[in-house]
């Protein structure tokens, strides 16, 4: 598309930049209210135990303690994020199901008193045998995490498309591999906080949330309140990556504590409590079988997965479906079978982490595809290009793909990484790997069933026309949506970005938006914003038409100037027109809403993975391996993405950098570790190895020219897609460097060293 744009497509500085660099930006935990109390939650020290008794009397006597609550003081309605499996309570009443499960809470004058009060709550537990190994959770005789879920099965999926057995039987080559993924944690740098307060029957919660709307919905449901009486406000948010998508004990317990004391209560997690709350990436066991023809064209894929859900569902049903649903995105094949069990264990619950469900299956499949390529003697880049999805195709599981430049991404990555030269010339110990990824541009269906639009927006032009404020329920959690949506609003209005203001993510002021998850906002919130902006523009042109006495068709508006297309010099400023509009017709407002079209097939689970558009990307990485220690040095990473029209290039590349950074950590460095009692061994940032600036290689991020016909100005997803190839890319680069395949994540130095040692021993045995 060759349209000239004034505002979109430019790397304008972030609208929140000055506040953030000066420390003026207030995050939830920075807020103070008069008379505010501090609240903390008492959690279980056991992975699985019956609660015999809870005695809060000593805690209540401690000076400074204003309230102590247990399951007796809160609603008993079970909640969760996936409506099909509400299985969580505000506080445990019968038993605790993981180390960190919620038991009681206190509200006190200060933080210190909270910790002292928690120590005074006496809970008598009867320890129960715990399920800690997800691969055996379904075994006969295992204890049940939830009595109502037999064999600890939380979610069971069996899907088949086409005729897999027939295709495998006819294939030139069939190969099976098994891979294991690890549990990781989002680890946003800002810990979760919530401040709850009541005015009469109305509850207001300031929260570090990725979705004020879902919080509002689920909190209103839990307390049996009309949604209108629950107000959720998101101040600045210090990252989420999926970990702040659902209400936690902080909101539920905080609301009850605030009600009981009649005072605002700030509840918060420390770093270890964040790890315990978790909702990070599921560990998965993944068996994959693929049949190909002699050229390496994929004929059929069979995926058989088990995932460790932890003690509760969270968004895990969706995670389970996503794991299979997104596997057929980047390569075309007709025959596909997906089987999955998501099982309960006595570990913290898992949920949606950046790339939701897809990165680990992608690791497995991309590693597996390289094995297949090696079997056939095909270059890994070639086998991907041969199979690359084309535009205007439909996946075997009924996802309609419009724009798709998978092949162009691979070809460009091949060039900028110098793939062919490196493939020929890199010495032993150096290697290069490639992998692909794709992700939804927003989910086709909401998390809970509703026919409400997915996004809405208002624009108010100020009475004198010198500013316009965008009101949106969308959430800027760092990705820059406030900036990008203001760019889109200004473009649609014919206004200037510099004059835009934004009010976002306050359920009482801003219109409905489902928030920041599934990489939806630029597209979905953007569609609503574009509509609102166009409504403003239309009114401005109408007013200008009467002011200039020219037909509306002859007028246009760009960059704050309304002008005649046919007569030079006939123009007005947006500002004066807007002011006139206000004087004559009242407030100049625009509104918009977005609802996706009906998407997907009719089989069970067909909704998960549907999206109006999909991003595609290819990543190449080069590594150098120390043969004696297994230490991995990342030489460089090249990412090429098809993400539709780019609204703000610098912010977009920042998303790619961040997404592949998170994927890089998961590939080699990050893993949540548990001891044999189900306690996290590294619930801190020294041994949960979030990478530092010194660990990061040079990164080159490029986009291919792309336009998504269904999206506003042709936009698509970027925030999560670049996490999906990274794990497989590392696996393949290591394989290329050393000729060994590590079949479990993370691909640690020690595992690489061990694989090399075993290879040497094997070769020595063969010689002998």
């Amino acid at each position: 598309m060759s349209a000239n744009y004034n505002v979109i497509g430019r790397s304008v500085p972030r609208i929140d930049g000055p506040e953030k660099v000066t420390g003026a930006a207030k995050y939830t935990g920075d807020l103070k209210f008069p008379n505010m109390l501090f609240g903390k939650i008492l959690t279980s020290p056991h992975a699985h135990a019956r609660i015999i008794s809870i005695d809060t009397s000593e805690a209540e006597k401690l000076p400074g303690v204003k309230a102590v609550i247990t399951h007796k003081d809160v609603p008993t309605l079970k909640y969760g994020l996936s409506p099909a499996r509400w299985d969580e309570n505000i506080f445990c009443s019968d038993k605790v199901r993981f180390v960190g499960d919620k038991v009681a809470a206190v509200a006190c004058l200060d933080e210190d008193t909270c910790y002292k009060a928690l120590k005074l709550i006496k809970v008598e537990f009867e320890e129960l045998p715990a399920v800690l190994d997800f691969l055996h959770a379904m075994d006969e005789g295992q204890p049940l995490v939830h009595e109502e879920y037999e064999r600890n099965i939380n979610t069971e999926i069996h899907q088949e498309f086409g005729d897999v057995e027939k295709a495998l039987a006819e294939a030139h080559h069939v190969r099976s591999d098994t891979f294991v993924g690890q549990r990781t944690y989002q680890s946003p740098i800002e810990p979760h906080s919530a401040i709850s307060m009541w005015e009469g029957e109305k509850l207001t919660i300031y929260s570090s949330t990725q979705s004020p709307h879902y919080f509002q919905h689920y909190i209103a449901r839990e307390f049996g309140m009309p949604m209108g009486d629950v107000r959720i406000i998101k101040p600045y948010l210090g990252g989420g990556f999926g970990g702040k998508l659902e209400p936690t004990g902080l909101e539920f317990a905080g609301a009850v504590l605030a009600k009981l004391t009649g005072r605002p209560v700030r509840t918060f997690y420390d770093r270890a409590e964040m790890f315990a709350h978790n909702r990070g990436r599921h560990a998965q066991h993944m068996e994959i079988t693929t049949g190909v023809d002699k050229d390496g064209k994929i004929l059929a894929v069979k995926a058989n997965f088990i995932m460790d859900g932890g003690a509760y569902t969270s968004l895990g049903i969706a995670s389970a479906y996503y794991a299979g649903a997104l596997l057929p995105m980047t390569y075309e094949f007709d025959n596909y079978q997906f089987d999955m069990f998501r099982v309960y264990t006595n570990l913290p619950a898992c949920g949606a982490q950046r790339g939701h469900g897809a990165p680990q299956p992608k690791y497995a499949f991309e590693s597996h595809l390289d094995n297949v390529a090696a079997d056939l003697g095909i270059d890994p880049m070639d086998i991907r290009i041969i199979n690359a999805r084309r535009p205007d195709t439909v996946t075997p599981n009924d996802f309609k793909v419009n724009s798709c430049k998978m092949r162009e991404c691979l070809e460009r990555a091949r060039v900028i990484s110098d793939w062919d030269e490196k493939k020929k010339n890199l010495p032993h110990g150096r290697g290069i790997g490639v992998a692909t990824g794709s992700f939804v541009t927003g989910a086709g269906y909401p998390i809970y069933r509703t026919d409400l639009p997915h996004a809405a927006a208002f624009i108010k032009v100020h009475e004198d026309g010198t500013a316009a404020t965008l009101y949106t329920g969308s959430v800027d959690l760092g990705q820059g949506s406030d900036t990008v949506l203001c760019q889109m609003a200004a473009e649609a209005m014919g206004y200037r970005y510099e004059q835009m203001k934004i009010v976002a993510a306050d359920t009482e002021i801003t219109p409905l938006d489902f928030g920041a998850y599934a990489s939806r906002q630029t597209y979905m919130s953007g569609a609503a914003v574009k509509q609102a902006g166009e409504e403003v523009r239309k009114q401005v042109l109408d007013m200008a038409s009467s002011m200039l006495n020219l037909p509306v068709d002859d007028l246009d508006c760009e960059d704050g100037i309304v002008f005649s297309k046919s007569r030079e010099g006939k123009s007005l400023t947006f500002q004066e027109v807007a002011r006139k509009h206000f004087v004559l017709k009242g407030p100049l407002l625009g509104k918009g809403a977005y609802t996706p079209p009906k998407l997907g097939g009719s089989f069970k689970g067909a909704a998960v993975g549907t999206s109006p558009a999909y991003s595609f990307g290819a990543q190449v990485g080069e590594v150098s391996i120390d043969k004696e220690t297994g230490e991995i040095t990342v030489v460089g990473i090249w990412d090429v993405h098809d993400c539709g029209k780019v609204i703000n290039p610098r912010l977009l590349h920042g998303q790619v950098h961040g997404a592949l950074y998170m994927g890089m950590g998961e590939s080699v460095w990050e893993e949540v570790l548990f001891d044999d009692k189900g306690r996290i061994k590294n619930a801190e940032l020294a041994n949960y190895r979030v990478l530092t600036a010194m660990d990061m290689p040079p990164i080159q991020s490029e986009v291919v020219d792309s336009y998504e016909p269904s999206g506003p100005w042709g936009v698509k997803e970027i925030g999560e897609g670049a996490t999906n190839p990274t794990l497989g890319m590392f696996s393949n680069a290591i394989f290329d460097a050393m000729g060994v395949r590590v079949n479990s994540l993370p691909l640690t130095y020690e595992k690489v060293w061990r694989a090399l040692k075993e290879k040497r021993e094997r070769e020595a045995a063969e010689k002998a």
Partner: protein
Amino acid sequence: MSQVLTDKDGVKRYLITLNVNGDAHTILVKGNAILTNVLRDQLDLTGTKKGCELGDCGSCTVLLDGKPVDSCLVLAVEADGREITTIEGVSANGALDAIQESMINHAAVQCGYCTPGMVLSAKALLTRNPHPTEPEVREAIAGNLCRCTGYVHIVEAVLAASQGRVTPDDH
């Protein structure tokens, strides 16, 4: 030694003076009060963030006598009489420091939670080494974990600031 006051329960509080961003604040703190918390809760300087509280993430970085430290591992009483610079003291009267301006223009800020600490680490670096190499920049901010950016634009922004190029070409 600072003056000590003992309350009716026998809890001691110390009268200390923290020189923060050029302002002398004389306040009462308990012996176990952590500098991060005192800055945030008593002086309302919430630009100093709490991320891990164990010296692993650098969100709470402040300059203590000009040197970056994790304020979560400093007792407020230990900082009595010393010069502290928090993020609120980096820009004066709304005039941003070159590092701040460069970070905005290079899109080196995402969620912004690590940003105050990052700015202070970079500020300390450029004060002692006005023209650092890229590895020196990476090393100087290695104690500031960022979960959003992969550090790409941050490193670029600090280097650019050191070279007086706070606005990138693609702007």
